[in-house]
C-alpha cells in the first residue's frame, strides 16, 4: 500500500496516510479482541472472588465441566447451575459428571462460586464432585 519512497519530487519527506491507517486498524482490532474475549465469559449472576496469584485458565472446554454456584442472600440459599440448567437436587448431577468421567479420564471440574457463599455450600459441591469420582478441580477467581 501507499506507493514507495515517501518523498516528493523536491526531496522533502511526506506524511503517508495509507500505512498509518493500516497500523491504526491493526492496533484497533488487537485491543478490541483482547477486551471482548475476556468480558464475554463473565456470568453476571455470580460475583467471583479475587485471587491475584491464580493461574491462567486452560482453554479445553471438552475436558471440563463448569459448575456455577449462585448465592441468594435474600433467601440464604445456593443453587448449582450446570450447562445453564439448575440442579436443586444433586443426584442427577452426580450421574452426569460420573458418566463424563467414565468416558474421559482427564475430565475436570471448575467451580465458579459467588464470593458471598458460605463454606458449607462449597463443601456440598465438592462432595458432589468427589461422588462422581473426579479429583482434579479448580476454583475460578478474578485477577483484579
Amino acid at each position, binding site marked *: 500500500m501507499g506507493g514507495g519512497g515517501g518523498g516528493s519530487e523536491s526531496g522533502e519527506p511526506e506524511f503517508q*496516510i495509507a500505512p*498509518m*491507517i493500516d497500523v*491504526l*486498524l491493526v*492496533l*484497533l482490532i488487537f*485491543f*478490541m479482541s*483482547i*477486551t471482548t474475549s*475476556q*468480558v464475554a*465469559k*463473565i456470568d453476571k449472576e455470580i460475583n*467471583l*472472588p*479475587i*485471587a*491475584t*496469584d*491464580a*493461574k*491462567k*485458565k*486452560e482453554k479445553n472446554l471438552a475436558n471440563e465441566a463448569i459448575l456455577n454456584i449462585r448465592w441468594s442472600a435474600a433467601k440464604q440459599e445456593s443453587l448449582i447451575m450446570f450447562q445453564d440448567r439448575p440442579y436443586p437436587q444433586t443426584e442427577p448431577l452426580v450421574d452426569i459428571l460420573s458418566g463424563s468421567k467414565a468416558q474421559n479420564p482427564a475430565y475436570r471440574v*471448575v467451580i465458579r*462460586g*459467588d*464470593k*458471598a*457463599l*458460605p*463454606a*458449607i*455450600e*462449597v*463443601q456440598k459441591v*465438592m*462432595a458432589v*464432585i*468427589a461422588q462422581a*469420582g*473426579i*479429583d*482434579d*478441580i*479448580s*476454583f*475460578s*477467581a*478474578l*485477577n*483484579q
Partner: protein
Amino acid sequence: MSSKRERKVEAENVNLGFQIAPMIDVVFVIMLFFMVMAGAVKKEMELKSQLPGMAPPSLDAPQEMPDEIIVGVEEAGYVTLNEEEFDSPTDKKLPNFTATLMRLKQEADNRNAKVIVTIEAEEQATYERVIDVLNALTVAKIANVTFTVGGDNGF
C-alpha cells in the same frame, strides 16, 4: 427554472468521495477507548487443586510421611495455621501466612516429603476468604488440599 439547473450542476460538482480525516479521528477515539479498557479488564483465572484421597499411588522411590498442615478459616475472617492466628481478618494478601507456608513447603521439599493441607472452615466462613487461603497456597506451590467444614469428614 435556470436556478434549478444551476443547483443541479453545483450538486454534480460536489465531491462526495471518501473523507479520510474524520475516519482517522473516529478510529483514534475507538482505539483509545479499547486501550483504556484493556487495562481495566477483569480476567477469569483459576486456582488448581487436587483432591488428595483419590490420587494414584506414586511408583517412585518411597517418600517420607506427608506433612499435614491444618489451616483454619473462621467466620470472622481469621486464618489460623496449626491453631496459630496469622494476619488480620481484612488482609486479603495474608503475607505472614504465605511466608510461613513457603518456608514449610521448602523444608518438606528438602526432605522429599509431600505437604498436605487441610482447610478447616467454619460453616459460615465466606468462600472469598477460602479463596484467599487457596491463593496463598498457590503462591507457596502447594496443590494437595483437603477441605472440611464444621468438623465433617472432608474431601
